[in-house]
């Protein structure tokens, strides 16, 4: 499953929200989670991976989950994206 977001926070994705995303992704043990942006795909369970995307306002970011709890995981991640004012769902 996947959802694409457009980054709206003018500071891009900082360490704090990146931390929240990684902590959430890590909770779902049996589910793989990835972030894809600018032609690069990294595991969402790595803060260095997420920061290495160098996301800035206006970039698009796709969150991908695969595994037994993929729907729950994607929901939880989407909630953080929206709650933290990081991004909006991109049609």
């Amino acid at each position, binding site marked *: 499953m996947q959802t694409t977001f457009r980054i709206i926070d003018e*500071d*891009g994705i*900082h*360490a*704090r929200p*990146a*931390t929240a995303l*990684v*902590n959430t992704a890590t909770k779902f043990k049996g589910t793989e989670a990835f972030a894809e942006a600018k032609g690069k795909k*990294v*595991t969402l*369970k*790595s*803060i*260095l*991976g997420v*920061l*290495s995307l*160098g996301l*800035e306002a206006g970039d698009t970011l796709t969150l991908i989950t695969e595994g037994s709890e993929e729907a729950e995981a994607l929901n939880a991640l989407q909630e953080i994206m929206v709650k933290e004012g990081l991004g909006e769902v991109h049609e």
Partner: protein
Amino acid sequence: MSKISGIAASAGIAVARAFILEHPDYSIAKAVITDTEAEVAKLNDALEKSKAELTAIKERTLAELGEKKAEIFESHLLILEDPELISPVIDKIREELVNADYALNVVAAQFIEMFENMKSAYLQERAADMRDVTKRVLNHLLGIHYISPAEISEETIVIAEDLTPSDTAQLNRQYVKGFTTNIGGRTSHSAIMARSLEIPAVVGTKSVLSQVKAGDLVIVDGLNGDVIINPTDDVVAEYKKKQEAYNLQIAEWKKLRDEPTVSADGKHVELAANIGTPNDVNGVIDNGGEAVGLYRTEFLYMGRDKLPSEEVQYNAYRTVLENMKGKPVVVRTLDIGGDKELPYLDLPKEMNPFLGYRAIRLCLDRQDIFRTQLRALLRASVHGDLRIMFPMIATLGEFRAARDLLLEEKSKLIAEGKEVSENIQLGIMVEIPSTAVLADQFAKEVDFFSIGTNDLIQYTMAADRMNEQVSYLYQPYNPAILRLVKIVIDAAHAEGKWTGMCGEMAGDSTAIPLLLGLGLDEFSMSATSILPARSQISKLSAADMKELAAKALQLGTAEEVAALVQSINK
């Protein structure tokens, strides 16, 4: 109770417990190991210990400073658990049979480099987090007991052999009330940084590190240059009183913050500040600085393991220009060498580093380094009133060569479609006697001079300013120095140009009447000296000081000059 004396490096009084800051040795050698699993276990053990430490720091920060300040440690914890970091380290140990500290250092360096090359300034700064986390694990792997100055979380006086620029950059003003060192003088970098951070400091005590134990109560008297160890209650009370009086005086000066600098007879001069990093700009504004008269760019190059990229530099210059809101910012191009070394450039040791391969000499030779800086400056120029000056110019040929490189980079940027300001003033530091003597010729080609007195004095008197045994020759009031200053100012004025001064002398209360009299246009000093200087100048008549300076130029010794200036105070 005991008392030692040093050099008063930064005004003010501080009373707090001692924190001993000593630097661990992080030199890491590659070793071949046989028991890879034992090495992996060692790594895991170091990681666990680091996590325990970070968790404790995080919780303490959370309780004392709130969620916002604690978040950074949460990110550090995640880095320690990050499979993208840990797996490659373990793979390296197992596949290459190398020691854990070496493997960690290599992998971490790749991430540090990745962050440094990112476009956003915020992400570039994450390289520092990566370094911190790596050092924390290395401490455990190498058996080093070290608390970084950034972790200080109670009111302390920092005691050290010397403080590096990166140490001082990490000092938290909320907790670090003062510092004192064994070595250094008024113009050493730790002293200069103390003044820009407005932390009382006494340097050059020779022995404070051996006399103070962690936790001792210490008074740092940055007004007189005294350090008192384990004072009695009476002495503490006496110093608290002194501290209050000083604070009152500061409050008095603060009233002049938004006033122009005008002499009693109506002559306006500009009071500017010397800065080392973009963080110092707040201090300039708070102290009523009318400009930045010297931005020392070498701090951008220090405390790291490779040259800063164009992007890193551009962001720093742009931040300073924007925060100064259109007020002039004089940026000095890289002045490295002498007492300021860059380990990663691997420069050969010299017999006389102050007379050797440094500053513009190095930049004209290593054009790759210089051109990167010039491009970053040119790109930043559209964000404010940028002025560029070259350090250590000894000949007109050097100035022309540096100027031509600047013009080349400017044309290239314009060809690339980048915006560059058309109003960048271009000047030189006058710190070598040959240039002072030939100032009339230079004045035809430069837009301004900035007299760097620290070096001008040491080169004119042939006395190393770092050598305490010849420190009596550091004589700002020597008529020989005053005559050189006069030559430079007169030469500039004859061509309709301006002259500033960015050495310590510009903020010195004995020198100020003389400099005003010699016609100096801009005085650039530590931010904290600006308001006292403004107060002093407002009480002086420029016309009278012109006569005073003329008399001083006819005297024979520095002592006679100082006595002459003192006489007007009566």
